């Protein structure tokens, strides 16, 4: 052919693009990645998202630079004449190195994700017997049961006389254990800024952990289609100082004292009513 070393050109272009883009991704986009740094688990997810994005950047750039280059360099300039290209049917060393590089990347990502997940559970629902329990900070541990139903979340505090509230406040610098369950259909408890998501299954106790930092306002949304008013199943929660939390929960216990007496005793799951099922 024309003697141009196309391969070296592509590699150089790719290196240039990668050297420019990867730091931009890590230092400019990275801090803006979800779900923010409100809790220990949320910060962990930001780190994880940054690592994934930084790993993906050279891969995406590789494909894009390659595509751009071949479309520029190998485009047919005289389409009126149908000419064939060189009959190259493969290249075993390219295939070999491709396999090595992609396998390494994939194993790295899977290994990294596993280690990160097993460290503190990453705020995800882990079922009734959680494997990854974060270390309890100086503030101690608080158990909050999230009871989902069509179409709201209620919060029950077994450590405070089993009082059930329809708002949620959490103390700062505390390990919070969410026991998520549902009374009817599948919901998903998604506290965005906390970095927590756990499906609420009827008859299942789904445990998720979060370690709060300082004061924070967080949005709670249902992340699993749960019927007609799914779109309206949202609310706001607050992480407040330990003193304010103590005052708040004491106030709630007084406020809901009559209702608490009517509630069934605290349990991991509830089966109040069969689903409009007769007989």
């Amino acid at each position, binding site marked *: 052919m024309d003697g141009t070393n*196309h391969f070296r050109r592509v590699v150089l272009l790719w290196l240039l693009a990668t050297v420019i883009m990867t730091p931009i991704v890590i230092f400019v986009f990275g801090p803006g990645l979800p779900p923010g740094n409100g809790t220990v688990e949320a910060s962990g997810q930001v780190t*994880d998202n940054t690592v*994934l994005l930084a790993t*993906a950047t050279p891969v*995406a750039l590789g494909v894009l630079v*390659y*595509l751009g280059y*071949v*479309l520029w360099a*190998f485009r*047919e300039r005289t389409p009126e004449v*149908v*000419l*064939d*290209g*060189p*009959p*190259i049917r*493969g*290249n075993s060393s*390219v295939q070999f190195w*491709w396999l090595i590089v992609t396998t390494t990347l*994939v194993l790295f*990502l*899977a290994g990294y*994700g*596993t280690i990160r*997940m*097993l460290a503190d559970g*990453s*705020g*995800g*629902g882990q*079922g009734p017997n959680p494997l990854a329990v974060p270390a309890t900070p100086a503030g101690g541990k608080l158990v909050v049961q999230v009871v989902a139903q069509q179409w709201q979340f209620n919060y029950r505090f077994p450590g405070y006389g089993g009082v059930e509230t329809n708002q949620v406040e959490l103390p700062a610098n505390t390990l919070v254990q969410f026991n998520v369950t549902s009374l009817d*259909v*599948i919901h998903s408890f*998604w506290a*965005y800024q906390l970095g*927590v*998501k*756990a499906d609420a*299954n009827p*008859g*299942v*106790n*789904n445990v998720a952990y979060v370690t709060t930092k300082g004061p924070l306002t967080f*949005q709670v*949304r*249902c*992340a*699993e*289609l749960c*019927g007609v008013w*799914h*779109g309206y199943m949202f609310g706001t929660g607050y992480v407040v100082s330990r003193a304010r939390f103590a005052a708040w929960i004491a106030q709630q216990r007084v406020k809901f004292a009559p209702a608490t007496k009517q509630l069934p005793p605290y349990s991991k799951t509830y089966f109040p009513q*069969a*689903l*409009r099922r*007769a*007989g």
Partner: protein
Amino acid sequence: MSAIAVPATARPTGWRKLIGFNMLTGILLGIGGWFLGYWIGGRFTGVNIAYYSKTAGQNDISIMLGYLLGVVGFLVGLGFANYPLKRMLGHPPSLAEQESEGEGLYKYFTLSTDHKVVAKQYMVGIGLFFFVAGLNAMLIRTELLQPNVHVFGANQYLTLVGMHGSMMMGTMTSGLLGPFATFLVPLMIGSRRMAFSRVSAFTFWLLMAGEVILLTTIFFGGFQTGWTGYQPLGAQGTAGYDAYIGFFALVGLSMTLFGFNLVVTITTMRSPGMTWTRLPIFVWGALTTAWLMVLAAPMLIAALLMAASDRTVQTAFYIPGQGGSAYLFQNLFWVFGHPEVYILALPGMGIVLELIPVFSRKPLWGYRLAVAGMLGIAFLSFFVWQHHLFVSGINADLRPFYMLSTELISLPTGFIFLCAMGTLWRGRIRLTVPMLFCLGWIFNFLWGGISGVFNSDVPSDVTTHGSFFVMAHFHYTIMGGLIFAFFAAIYYWVPKMYGWKLNERLAKIHFWTLFIAFNSTFAPLFALGFMGMPRRVVTYNPAWQGLNIWVSVSAYFIGLSMLVFLFNVVWSLAIKREPAPANPWHAKSIEWELPTPLPVHDFDRIPVFDHDPYPYGEPAPTRAPVIAPAGRTA
């Protein structure tokens, strides 16, 4: 003469054609069957039985039986009972009973055993429901123009979401294989037909019956579950959920049989010399997809049968607190559902790898690697399904395994990318419309694949699961992948299938508007998901309205781009028809050696293959002139 004689019975003409076994009879018998089933179901109700939907005054047994007998009536009216009945009564077999060249348009409304007719039936049927489902998407985006409810009520909105998802998923499982594999696989492997011609027709008409059933959901209150149909929400839903069950069960049956048909055809009916390593890569795509269909779709049917019996005869497979489990449905659904997304993706990969050699004028780079990639994807797709349930609390200890298996799928997918990219290297790239769509596929699928890594990583998935991020991810792989491959295939093979070319200028407008509008629609959805917008909500945080308006307006441009395509079809078909030459792309695979239009029996002599379909740049191998359909070109 063709190999199989067409019986020379006198055929009715004019309006008399309407009397007999055809679509009209099928529709009439289908409606009759519906009322019969509905009436019988009504008789079943006892005073002691109350149904979930009793409050709505609807009886699920009646509705289910109505659908069942309606489908049976429709199929009998089309003539599917004739052959088995005749055989049982001792008549000789008559394979070609409906194959005829002289029937004109009428044959498309009947049970046809000609694979080319079935392929065109698929093309129009799938196009029709693709259009309907696309309109649903426009309506969804209209509602999301404002953060509060303003056009549709919440129930209507969810029904639209569910219909869009179900119809797209159900229709497009056959979207590439239905028209293109039915048409091309027999040609490419040198067979005159599919292994089971009548089953081919059956899978098509079954799919159409299913689509109509899904549309009837609007008469019964719609369904609130989305396309995933999770339980026990489904058990609680209005009678419209019965339509969802009926639709997906028929789609499942259609897929299973279609896959079975393809596996048998490709395995047993290859002509001499068509070895496994000479098989066109599109046929490999069809074969791996067919295996997935055969193995995965029965799971769906089983899951839906249990859902149906929960709703009708009061079993409790999915009712927690009554001995059932909501997890059971999720598991069964995704054991089907994850292979399903590769059922959507693999044929597209086959098409892209089939077309890129033609327009790079080079042999397919790394043929064996591409085949290994397809087999690897098909195999691994059965071991990843619980990544849909990472935060559900089920089998939490197995999450590292599912994380690994999910990320491993990017290896065989990488093979497909490598082969596509390797084929472009040093080629003589011709940017025709099909090639543009193939390049669009590579670009879109790249983002689909990279965003998939975020979903497969548990810590990252805690944020992205159930959000618009996931929605953007699978639209990049399915719409950016499957639909772009779909249009590549249409622009590439329509000249062969129909004998006319689509206008190239309009086609280029279609491509560029679609490519830009598609990316402009779905790229912002990644951002919305990252910001915390959940899927399937009718209301959202007003702070997100700006991006949502952008997305909706871009979505309308997708709609306009599709109208350009429709206009192109009408223009090129009816207004300015340009007859296509036999081989407009100078391709070297066998379907282009055949005359246009194709004779009914494709080959007068079965071809013998001595090379693969990609001898670009190589000394032209000498193939005996196997196709000499004398006197058969129109």
